[in-house]
């Protein structure tokens, strides 16, 4: 919007006026969306709490150990407040959350916020690197496939990427470990750094290679298909025909006109995928002993660790709402047909 205003050859007060109007609109829109988000989140939290409560058993049941007496187990349940009715527990939980306290795990008593926070960086490192790598692969492959659509090369690339998405992650992961770590000794078998080492940047990058590649192999097909169909779509558009008619060479037609205009749908899909970066990848994390959110989520489901489970689900819900809002704002900024 700034660009538009800036390029216009009009008096300063007018520029200021346009800015002001846009800002007012946008601010009011964002504020309204954020206000709607609050009741949305509350409703999500209530439903989630209810659904979690419907799961059979509680965290004390999950600790069962036949050598403990039933009396001592009941005492523990009482002390942990698990015997209170659901609305009492929910109000207790949400009032603590409103104060910024996510509570303590009912399984290991550690602060929930600490447990989630210490896994955020490893999760984002793994998932973010995998996303970047799959985009770096998807763009050239997708563009080539689009330009040579329905050729043998296109079919070959499509088959390759789709076999990547079809092979189960644990298989690719273990095969990767066997070939590149055990046999070729190029990369470490697992973990984020060498155990007992100093955890230097080089060491960490070295440990990142294999898990990121395994994830990227899985994700590349999605983005490749997206880039491919989007480029094919814009190649059919009038402006590409015009560009060709102007006598531009084919490379410039594709890169400057077709590809650039097909970025929009890719960006909007990325917006939808962003919250997924936070939720991690359970199987990959397990295989590579990676301390990600995915494993924490699974552990907390099995342990009926309500506070941890609620925290992960609510953070994900907030991220979904925020990234949806971001995508909508970007639409308005990019597409003049959309106004709010």
């Amino acid at each position, binding site marked *: 919007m700034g660009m538009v205003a800036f390029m216009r050859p009009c008096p300063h007060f007018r520029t200021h006026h346009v800015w002001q109007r846009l800002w007012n609109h946008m601010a009011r829109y964002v504020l309204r969306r954020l206000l709607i988000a609050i009741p949305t989140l509350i409703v999500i939290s209530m439903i989630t709490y209810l659904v979690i409560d419907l799961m059979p058993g509680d965290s004390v049941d999950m600790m069962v150990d036949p050598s403990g007496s039933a009396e001592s187990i009941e005492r523990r349940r009482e002390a942990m407040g698990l015997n209170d009715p659901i609305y009492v527990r929910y109000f207790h939980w949400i009032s603590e959350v409103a104060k910024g306290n996510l509570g303590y795990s009912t399984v290991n008593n*550690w602060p929930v916020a600490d447990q989630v926070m210490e896994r955020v960086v490893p999760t984002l490192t793994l998932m973010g690197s995998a996303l970047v790598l799959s985009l770096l692969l998807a763009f050239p492959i997708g563009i080539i496939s689009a330009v040579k659509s329905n050729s043998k090369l296109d079919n070959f690339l499509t088959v390759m990427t789709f076999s990547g998405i079809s092979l189960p992650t644990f298989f690719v992961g273990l095969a990767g470990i066997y070939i590149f770590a055990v046999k070729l000794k190029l990369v470490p*078998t697992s973990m984020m750094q060498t*155990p007992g080492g100093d955890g230097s940047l*080089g060491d960490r990058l070295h440990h990142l290679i294999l898990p990121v590649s395994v994830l990227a192999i899985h994700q590349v097909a999605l983005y490749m298909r997206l880039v491919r169909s989007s480029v094919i779509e814009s190649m059919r558009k009038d402006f590409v025909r015009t560009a060709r008619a102007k006598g531009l060479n084919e490379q410039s037609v594709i890169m400057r006109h077709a590809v650039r205009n097909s970025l929009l749908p890719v960006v909007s899909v990325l917006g939808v995928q962003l919250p997924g970066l936070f939720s991690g990848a359970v199987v990959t994390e397990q*295989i590579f*002993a990676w301390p990600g959110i995915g494993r924490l989520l699974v552990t907390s489901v099995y342990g009926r660790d309500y506070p941890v489970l609620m925290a992960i689900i609510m953070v994900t819900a907030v991220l979904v709402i925020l990234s949806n809002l971001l995508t909508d704002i970007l639409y308005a900024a990019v597409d003049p047909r959309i106004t709010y």
Partner: protein
Amino acid sequence: MTRNHKLNSTSPSVDRRTFLKAGAAMSVAIASLADPLHALGYGTQTSHKMAAQQAGVVNLFMSSSPDTFLPHYSIGAYSRYIGQLIFPRLLRYQEDASVVPYLAESFEVSDDGLVYTFSLVQNAVWSDGTPVTANDVAWTYTMAFHGDYTGTRQVEAPVAGGQAYREGTADSVSGIVVVDDHTIQFTLERPTSSFVENVAQFFWILPAHAFEGTEIIDIAKHEMARNPTVTAGPLNFVRYETDQYVELAANPNFILGQPKIDTFIVKILRNDVALAQFETKEMDATTKVGVMLPQDVASLEGMGLQVTPVPGSALQSMGINNDRECFQDKRVRQAMAHAIDRQAIIDSLLMGYGQILNAKVPTFSPYYNPETAGLLQYDPDLAKQLLEEAGWDFNREITLFVPTGNVTRERSGPIIQQYLQAVGMKVKMETMEFATQSARVDAGEADLWLVGSSFVTFDPDQTSSFHSASLPPSGWNSWRWMNPEADQAMDDGLAAVTFEERKEANDRLQMIMADDVPVVFLYHPEDIHVISTRLQNATPTAVGIEWNIQDWELTQ
């Protein structure tokens, strides 16, 4: 001119050459980029291995993450595993599952079986230099009787005054008395022979001074639960890299002698990755909480490693709802045991790595009754005959619940269903999540179900899961087995003072169970242990491999 000429004549090939030169330069750059990694000891497996050997680093395998470092509060075996390496206990198990002195150099039991007096070693110190005294022992045991204590590990013995302290009517537990700095005395309300094994063996001593000023309710949230800096076990805690590994170091003041290896890395891995690490020599030993699978044995032997199967800590059973009208005739329950070919299940699902038990006492226990061996043999004709004699309604449909979570157990479901169908029983199978099954079993909705139980200690007492006083919801007798003779045998076993008295009562109980078949004990899987060739003096037995951790050594 010449210059121009040269330029002109070579210009087409200069491009290619420059390209090649650039390529060569780039590969040198990449190589030098990789070099510092190698120089630091990272990158290749060989350099890592060498570094490990020089520093005396041993790598152990654990299959899941610990949840706390205060083992009294842990929900799984993983925290308890780390707990036993960093905190001492009064007594411990020797390799043959016999109880031997540890922090207590000796102990006495009074003739009436009520008073236990432990004499502690004089030279034990915590890692911060404070001496380990009877006060620490008293504090730890008293904590467990406090009304606000939320730990999973309880003192399952009637220590005198425990109840009064829990209810807040007494300021201390009258049955726990510090005689002097190195003598502690426990008084029980009634003789409880399981006290030695259940409590003295399984209750880790904590440093009282490290928790000074902490309310009992807050102990689980104490810094010691995440970073246990004050310890006195064979190893000291160094750090925990979340979901990756626990690093431990030799305790120079360990009362049984300083461990000869400096650093212990307990890696949290999946089985298949641990297998890969045995091949890359990044792994040295399995543990009780991280064992290999039967299908890995061939690969491990192919790597030249020695594989040792030992009796494991789990026992898989088919629960029977003894409360159901149709199962009340013991011949029906015996028929089901005779109908299932348990050895065939062990051979096919565990590749032979398992044992058959007819009562819940493992073969290596001093209380095991060898007379139960060979009973309840696979005999489908006898099974049919027993069913007919009992007047079994062959049109009746019964349901077998199969819980998810343990792959071998899930796979055994359809096999057991087929065995029962082969003798004419109509069996429907229902698969569900474990917690769902437990809830339905406790509500009395189940006919038959598969369930695992563990030998957490090697104590032969079965009161908590087979006594008629332990019916759900207040106990673990979810099969609702009510046998007065068995109750008597369990009571006698607990009241026994001498080993012989206790052995007699438990022998009797095992024979009753093998005859009355409250549940069908299906198989007792073996733990498959592997030790790397460079790790010396580590010997896996049913108690694990850490019983002599201070004697382990590494060779080049």
